[in-house]
């Protein structure tokens, strides 16, 4: 920057990367860039920014859109409600929720309760008539999964999996739906909780019937 030529040409680099210079000046700047690595690096940095400009819509930049002022309270309300549900336990009352299927048997499960009960997950995708709730818990050897579900086709076998960011699925096991009642299945997958982006259940044809985002 101490160099006389740099002082002269550097302020033109913005116009240069935007293609706004007249022919003579563009050639002069180009000649300086060929000789000066400092200005070349600067032009490259500005060029990256210049290439992003077309994605912006100039009509949107005068004023930042703002949410309604009570959104902060609604955010707190929603979390507060979830907090109350969590402390209350995760289904209102269902006496007949004996674990019908234990797809992963290792005697490792002490039952999901208490503070370290993992996190509740909501299935954003579920067929009509099917109710389901899940819970995942990060453990040293992978992720423990508990699913409570009712309304699946009786007798059909379902596969449970965790999805990785790239779309690969790590199987957690299978279970068979039981007619007319809610079942609880506990399974596990050898994938750390933090590496899973979704929890899913698919039928024998491989179609996804339940899907919950974990991120």
């Amino acid at each position: 920057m101490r160099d006389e030529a740099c002082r002269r040409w550097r302020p033109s680099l913005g116009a240069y990367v935007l293609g706004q210079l007249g022919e003579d000046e563009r050639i002069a700047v180009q000649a300086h860039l060929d000789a000066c690595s400092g200005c070349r690096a600067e032009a490259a940095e500005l060029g990256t920014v210049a290439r992003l400009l077309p994605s912006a819509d100039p009509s949107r930049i005068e004023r930042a859109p703002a949410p309604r002022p009570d959104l902060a309270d609604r955010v707190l309300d929603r979390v507060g409600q979830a907090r109350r549900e969590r402390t209350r336990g995760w289904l209102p009352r269902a006496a007949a929720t004996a674990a019908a299927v234990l797809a992963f048997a290792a005697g490792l499960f002490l039952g999901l309760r208490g503070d370290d009960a993992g996190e509740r997950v909501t299935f954003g995708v579920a067929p009509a008539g099917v109710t389901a709730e899940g819970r995942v818990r990060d453990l040293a050897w992978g992720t423990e999964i508990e699913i409570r579900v009712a309304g699946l086709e009786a007798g059909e076998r379902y596969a449970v999996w965790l999805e990785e960011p790239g779309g690969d699925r790590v199987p957690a096991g299978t279970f068979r739906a039981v007619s007319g009642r809610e079942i609880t299945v506990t399974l596990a997958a050898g994938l750390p909780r933090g590496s899973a982006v979704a929890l899913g259940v698919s039928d024998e044809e491989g179609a996804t019937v339940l899907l919950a985002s974990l991120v």
Partner: protein
Amino acid sequence: MRAGRRALRTEADLRSAYAEHGGELYGFALRSLEDRELAEEVVQETFLRAWRAGSRFDPEIGSLRTWLFAIARNVVIDQARARARVAPVERAEFPGEPDAVERALVAWQVEEALRRLAPDHRRVLVETYYRGRPYAEVAAELGIPEGTVKSRVYYALRSLRLALEEMGWTDEG
């Protein structure tokens, strides 16, 4: 078990995270979904998911802001897909695909960075670049020499880069 404390554990944590990032998350969601109600819904759902997953936030890996935006991006995709199921052909561009959401995120970031520029700098970029007006005309209108317009364009781009970097943008090149 794990080092560090759970993020967003208390109401005060949530309040300050909202004060810091709520507006930006809303701006991004609105830019993606073009619907104020849905955008507010995205913000609520983002903080809910963040609260639920709070133990997985690791401040040594990234900022709270980056983490919230990663969650918001997924919520936007979920919202767009849910809307598409209800009204399949309402909009020309379907924003439910990750690529479209990514584009909206870049667009929002650039617009937000432009908003953060000094007004003089923003002005010359808008006039010369977006409106394509000649330097001489802009210089005359602003009552400044052409050379000043040119150096303002230069500083505008430099400031824009800094603003983008502050927002967590990195050039992948």
